[in-house]
């Protein structure tokens, strides 16, 4: 299915991270996406005034794997070791709507035609929501890159945006994938290293403590928020069934009750739409917010890891230098190596400090915006519900 997302919708969605895509010199968006079986094809559209690009405006089709390639390439770039690399967008996950579709197929026999149609509608809405979400996270990933002074100039980034052929050749082949996998495993072992390394800088000491703790908390909150959203969705589904059954009862009823039942059925149909909106808004503003920053914090932790590694390297180089001086052998190489490590470490620390401070600011702003918007939406939906309900009550009482 194709989805063309209008500007309004995108504005609503583009809220997880703020202040993106404001620089007219490089504007990126994903106006379009196609879903074929399980593969999603994104249309990446770029508008730029920069001379480094061949054309001022162009679009290319990209798959999820291409985004992952770009991300991993950036992570592996030595020069960016001191930066928080924006987290890779998660793989499009249609598991939930697919499961629902399965259940719907099984339960078809027990439902009326209208009920089935409504459930199908609900299912399609969920499919669409997942779809929109995945487009959003992919888009934000690119926009984070384009907003970053250093990363936006990355050559691979440019290739990603511009190259009008299939990127598959440039992507990791199977062996390299495996290598990446292994690296991840080693990395988690080294995370212990972060905690273990003696920190010299107060700022980083604090950040380390904070990020490690915050990560686990936010991960938990994300999971719990997701469960809340799921329960809301279940309630919306129940309202569908209730509405449909009330409708069936009303068609069979010949008394004055008939009108009451029709009104009631109608009410539940409207309520379920509102409940559905409550669920999806909560998901976007709360769950997605938490999920995004969970990943972002992981990226920040990765930065700390890299710095800790650099520190470890520096300390090892110091030890090597001492050994060399003791043995009076290869002293210049050792000195050079030590200098090199020190420089690298200093550069990482400086850039890291900047990045982490910026990150905190970004995080606070995003939380503020989303919490405000969520509260406002909750109020709006509750008012809507109250009006619908009161209207029905008045109608019932007057008859």
């Amino acid at each position, binding site marked *: 299915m194709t989805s063309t997302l209008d500007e309004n919708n995108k504005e609503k969605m583009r809220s997880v991270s703020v202040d993106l895509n404001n620089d007219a010199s490089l504007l990126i968006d994903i106006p379009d996406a196609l879903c074929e079986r399980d593969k999603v094809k994104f249309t990446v559209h770029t508008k730029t005034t920069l001379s480094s690009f061949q054309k001022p405006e162009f679009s290319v089709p990209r798959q999820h794997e291409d985004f992952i390639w770009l991300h991993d390439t950036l992570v592996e770039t030595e020069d960016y070791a001191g930066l928080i690399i924006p987290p890779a967008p998660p793989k499009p996950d249609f598991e939930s709507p697919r499961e629902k579709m399965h259940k719907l197929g099984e339960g078809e026999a027990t439902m009326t035609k209208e009920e089935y149609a409504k459930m199908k509608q609900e299912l399609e809405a969920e499919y669409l929501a997942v779809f929109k979400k995945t487009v959003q996270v992919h888009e934000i990933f690119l926009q984070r890159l384009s907003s970053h002074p250093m990363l936006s100039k990355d050559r691979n980034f440019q290739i990603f945006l511009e190259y009008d052929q299939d990127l598959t050749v440039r992507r990791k082949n199977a062996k390299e994938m495996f290598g990446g996998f292994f690296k991840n495993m080693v990395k988690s072992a080294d995370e212990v290293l972060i905690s273990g390394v003696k920190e010299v800088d107060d700022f980083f000491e604090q950040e380390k403590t*904070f990020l490690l703790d915050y990560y686990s908390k936010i991960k938990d909150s994300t999971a719990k928020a997701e469960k809340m959203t799921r329960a809301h969705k279940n*309630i919306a589904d129940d309202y569908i069934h209730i509405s449909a059954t009330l409708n069936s009862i009303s068609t069979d009823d010949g008394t004055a009750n008939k009108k*009451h039942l029709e009104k009631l059925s109608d009410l539940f149909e409207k309520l379920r739409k509102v409940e559905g909106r409550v669920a999806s808004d909560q998901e976007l503003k709360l769950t997605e917010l938490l999920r995004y920053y969970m990943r972002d914090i992981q990226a920040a932790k990765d930065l700390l890891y890299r710095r800790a590694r650099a520190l470890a390297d520096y300390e090892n180089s110091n030890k090597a230098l001492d050994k060399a001086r003791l043995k009076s052998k290869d002293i210049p190489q050792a000195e050079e190596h030590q200098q090199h490590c020190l420089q690298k470490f200093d550069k990482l620390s400086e850039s890291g400090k900047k990045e982490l401070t910026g990150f905190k600011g970004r995080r606070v702003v995003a939380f*503020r915006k989303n919490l*405000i918007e969520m*509260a*406002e939406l909750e109020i709006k939906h509750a008012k809507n519900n109250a009006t619908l309900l009161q209207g*029905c009550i008045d109608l*019932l009482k007057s008859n």
Partner: protein
Amino acid sequence: MADTAREPPPAESTDFEELEDAEELFPEPAAADNESEPASLPAEDISTNSNGPKQDSLFDDDPEDLFAEATEEVSLDSPERDVLLSDGPSPAITPITPPLSVITPCLGHDDMFTHSSFDEIEEEELNDSFDMHISVSDPEKVGDGMNAYMAYKVTTKTSVSLFKRDEFSVKRRFSDFLGLHSKLASKYLHIGYIVPPAPEKSIVGMTKVKVGKEDQSSNEFVEKRRSALERYLLRTVKHPVLLKDPDVLQFLESSDLPRAVSTQALSSAGLLRMVNKAADAVNKMTIKMNESDAWFEEKQQHFENLDVQLRKLHASVESLVCHRKELSVNTAQFAKSAAMLGNSEDHTALSRALSQLAEVEEKIDQLHQDQANADFYLFSELLGDYVRLIAAVKGVFDHRMKTWQKWQDGQMLLQKKREAEAKLQLNNKPDKLQQAKDEIKEEIEELEAKVHQGERDFEQISKTIRKEVGRFEKERVKDFKTIIIKYLESLVQTQQQLIKYWDAFLPEAKAIS
């Protein structure tokens, strides 16, 4: 259908206790036009055993004897009947409930009276603004261990003149309610009255209470039961005929009530009930009735459909209750998690906002919990009650079928006897002939009377059902409307609370800098 065995009328109390819907031993009404007779004795029930017709012969024998037993009722009834026939407010009557051994006959079922008494009842219904408030409250555990039980306080506030006082209360236990229903069912179901069903037993639920677990689920169970008992009583007294039944009056008023033993699930009465239910089901399948009255066919179909739809709706609402409870739990968990996140957050203003968020979510989880209760006690239980009520309605239709069957059986038997008589005429054995002819003639006379009675019974039950269904449908519409409005109001309240909570949170979120 020759019946030979004749059981002696069970006169001992114990036997009666063992029987439920089965062997109702009401003598047939005597000459219909005699007012002074205790004519308020309903026609006999077709016992739910398959040897139903067999019972018929019993009553033909000694109507006088059975009347003698019922003498107490006679004196009891006449003043009551006078009350019904008069228009003005009736003097208070002190019902003397007979011992359990004799099941109280109900009112006005003789041909002549039914019509008028029904009208009277309706009139009285319109005259009395139905002023009766019953509450079931203060569940109290009595006793220990497996013999423990819950005693409930039943308080009645009324200006209905049937009662001695305006306000009174008694202590009752669950089996008392079941006993009341059992008595009412045995008296009224088979003649077409829709008797509200009693709440269901729950061995598991009750055992937990007995064992003394003072936890959330056993408290919920007691509350659920208390609420169900209250609704059951209210429905019962709303029925104009049932309200005046001495057993109902005794239940509400008298401080001592003999224990209803036959309601125990595992008693012999319980087993008998199960057997009867099974026999019922089989019989129902084999009765093929020629429905001449379109009204009945239409209504039966209507109730069949309604049954299916209500069950479906009930299931959906039960699912809603479950999910709402889930939402409450999940919200509570999220609240805790958000609080921890707030603690962990090092930006002061954001930290505070997150803590506030946690507080809001905690309040909201309580809101969802309360809403789930409203979902259950108002909506779900209403539907559950009506699913059971419709089963009672369907039962009443079934009784009509049985009545018809009985009438038809009688006719068939009569036919056979007539044929036998004709055969005898052609027989050439003069010595046996006269005796046989006389016997057959007598039998035919009896059967003719029975067939005639069967036809009247059938017409009577059809008439009663029509009225009952009309009343039931009216009640149903009113009931649904009242409770649904209440339920919707609970939903409105929840939404308004949500608005309040989020409104309070908004400035906190905006304060993040």
